């Protein structure tokens, strides 16, 4: 078989597929899709911010009404942590998905970098998402004083006895351990295989053929 024949078979393959493009409608539709995608991203970002702001307001109210000093401090630190999480998630979501108009090699490099950043974010969850609130949780729980010094509906749900404090912290620690494990698992199963696959294709592109 000759080379021209191969190209002919290839090109003839689309003879039976008739693609009709309605050009005026296509451009309008593409513009609409772009706007709707941008709108979706904007709405998701707003939802994340609103949820965090509600959390911050909640802790600010608790900090204001609760009489125990260390518990107040822990609430204020939690607000700072909330702000940090918003910043961290925002800066992670700002990492753009790779530009499909780059050369294949560059696009794969960009994509690999993006995936590695996402994996790092999940792998380091313990240090920025778990440890800071756990420390503030300890301050909160041990900052709670005697029940008779404060009369409020909130006081009925706070841990006053040492055994209650330890039980609450153990449950919180178990929950945080589970979140850490879930995130590390997601980094391993979602990102690591994709990164390996990209490296394999890149290796194929750069490999010398002199052997």
């Amino acid at each position, binding site marked *: *078989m000759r*080379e021209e024949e*191969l*190209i002919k*078979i*290839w*090109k*003839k*393959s*689309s003879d*039976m*597929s*008739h*693609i*009709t*493009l*309605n*050009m005026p*409608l*296509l*451009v*309008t*539709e*593409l513009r609409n*899709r*772009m706007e709707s995608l941008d709108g979706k991203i904007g709405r998701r970002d707003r939802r994340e911010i609103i949820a965090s702001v509600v959390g911050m307001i909640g802790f600010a109210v608790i900090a204001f009404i609760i009489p125990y000093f260390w518990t107040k401090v822990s609430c204020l630190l939690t607000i700072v942590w909330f702000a940090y999480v918003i910043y961290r998630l925002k800066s992670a979501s700002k990492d753009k*998905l*790779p*530009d*499909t*108009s*780059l*050369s*294949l*090699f*560059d*696009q794969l490099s960009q*994509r690999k970098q993006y*995936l590695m950043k996402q994996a790092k974010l999940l792998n380091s969850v313990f240090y920025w998402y778990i440890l800071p609130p756990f420390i503030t949780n300890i301050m909160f729980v041990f900052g709670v004083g005697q029940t008779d010094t404060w009369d409020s509906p909130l006081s009925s749900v706070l841990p006053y006895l040492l055994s209650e404090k330890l039980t609450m912290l153990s449950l919180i620690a178990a929950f945080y351990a589970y979140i850490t494990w879930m995130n590390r698992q997601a980094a391993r199963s*979602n990102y690591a295989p*994709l990164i390996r*696959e*990209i490296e*394999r*294709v*890149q290796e*194929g*592109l750069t490999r010398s*053929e*002199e052997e």
Partner: protein
Amino acid sequence: MTIKRKSKDSTVFEQAIEDHKDSLYRICHIYAADPLEPADLFQEVVFQAWRSYSSFEEKSRLGTWLYRVAINVCLSAKLKLNRKNDITVKLDAISFQIGKWDEKRDERYEALKSCIEILNESDKSLVVLYLEELSYKEIGSIHGMTENHVAVKMKRIRKKLFDCITKKLGA
């Protein structure tokens, strides 16, 4: 100024898509794998090309640039790299009518397709552009490789492809 350029160029974009629709579809056909149909991939290629069109710097031909977008989109879909950006674009402005092939042509194309499919991903992306009769220089610019490197690689890939297809068709 930029807005004016963009709106002016949409006719150039439309024309380029019209001119290359069959080529782009052939590439999509090779990369489509269940549950993605070639038509789904084709629509995604058009959408992603439109998204990136404002950054097209006219350093290369618009046609070459479209092939670059197509290879990137198709390979990403194949490797399932788009977790955040799943392929869901459905464009009513594009309609597909797929007819039936005669048996002989079908057999020859299927042999070619299955020989392309056994190549590794980087070789596959080179060979589809070679079959579209792009120059080694253009293929190199799409892949981020030198013209020489493409030539050396293509020599080996062509041999592999011919050996495979000869064996399959017995000719």
